[in-house]
């Protein structure tokens, strides 16, 4: 993600946020990450006009439970936020969650590897893809 726009991580379990921050740090991206604990904070962050809109949202779905789906629905139905790509991070590939997430227009559904090295590799693949892709947030 060569854009300088922030990367919003929505995760309510501090240990998850810490692991992902560490993985992003290993990829030289930690300073761009904005972490909001929980979906309500995330929506408030996104709706505050003085905050820069993120280039990408990483949503830890398991941690948020049904609130995660509600968050997706709120973001995707908001004209000022709907274009921001949302990538789901999950602990398990529950088929219904996958289908429901893509029905709500996610741009990826990644099952987090439990092994740290594999998690860094997964984050690297996400970074490579979203560096290649143009983003609605503006100049890269």
């Amino acid at each position, binding site marked *: 993600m060569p854009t300088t726009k922030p990367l919003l991580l929505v995760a309510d379990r501090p240990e998850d946020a810490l692991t992902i921050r560490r993985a992003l740090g290993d990829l030289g991206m930690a300073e761009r990450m904005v972490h909001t604990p929980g979906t309500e904070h995330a929506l408030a962050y996104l709706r505050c006009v003085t905050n820069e809109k993120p280039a990408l949202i990483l949503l830890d779905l398991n941690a948020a439970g049904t609130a995660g789906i509600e968050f997706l629905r709120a973001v*995707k139905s908001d004209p000022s936020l*709907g*274009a*921001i*790509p949302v990538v789901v991070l999950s602990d*398990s*590939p*529950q*088929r*219904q969650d*996958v*289908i429901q*997430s*893509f*029905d709500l*227009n*996610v*741009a*990826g*559904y*990644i*099952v987090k590897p439990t092994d740290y090295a594999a998690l860094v590799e*997964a984050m690297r*693949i*996400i970074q*490579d*893809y979203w560096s*290649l*892709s*143009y*983003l*609605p947030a*503006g*100049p890269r």
Partner: protein
Amino acid sequence: MRDSRPVLLAEDDSIDAMTVRRAFRDLKVTNPLVHAINGEEALAYLKEKTNDRPCLILLDLNMPKMNGIEFLTAVKTDPAFKKIPVVVLTTSSEQRDVVESFRLSVAGYIIKPVDYRNFVEAMRTINMYWTLSELPDEKAEDPNAHNQTLVACGRSS
């Protein structure tokens, strides 16, 4: 890609379509590549019930008859097709096209590299991402549901 279903390519330029096919072969991507020459043909492919539903759609924007944006509008408002991830593969770097595409829920917007080596690298990145990511497949057997049924049966007997 993560599963073996076809990849649908909507592309009016036969050279570009051949380049995608060649990149698939060089990267040993085994998914069948279905080529439609415009949005209308791609939509007709999706609507034909005997065709395998694609796991991913690669979409050019500038096409005759039905262009990429018109195709996206049709696909993303149809409950039967809206879950299929669509990745734009185009020569247009106009911010207006980027924003319009993301408003229509694309899952990536990639400018076609002119040089073949860079083109293969771009296809490699796309393939790696969509191998890492789960893909929605409503027809597939759900192993979790199956296990849950087994557990439920075990408890009730």
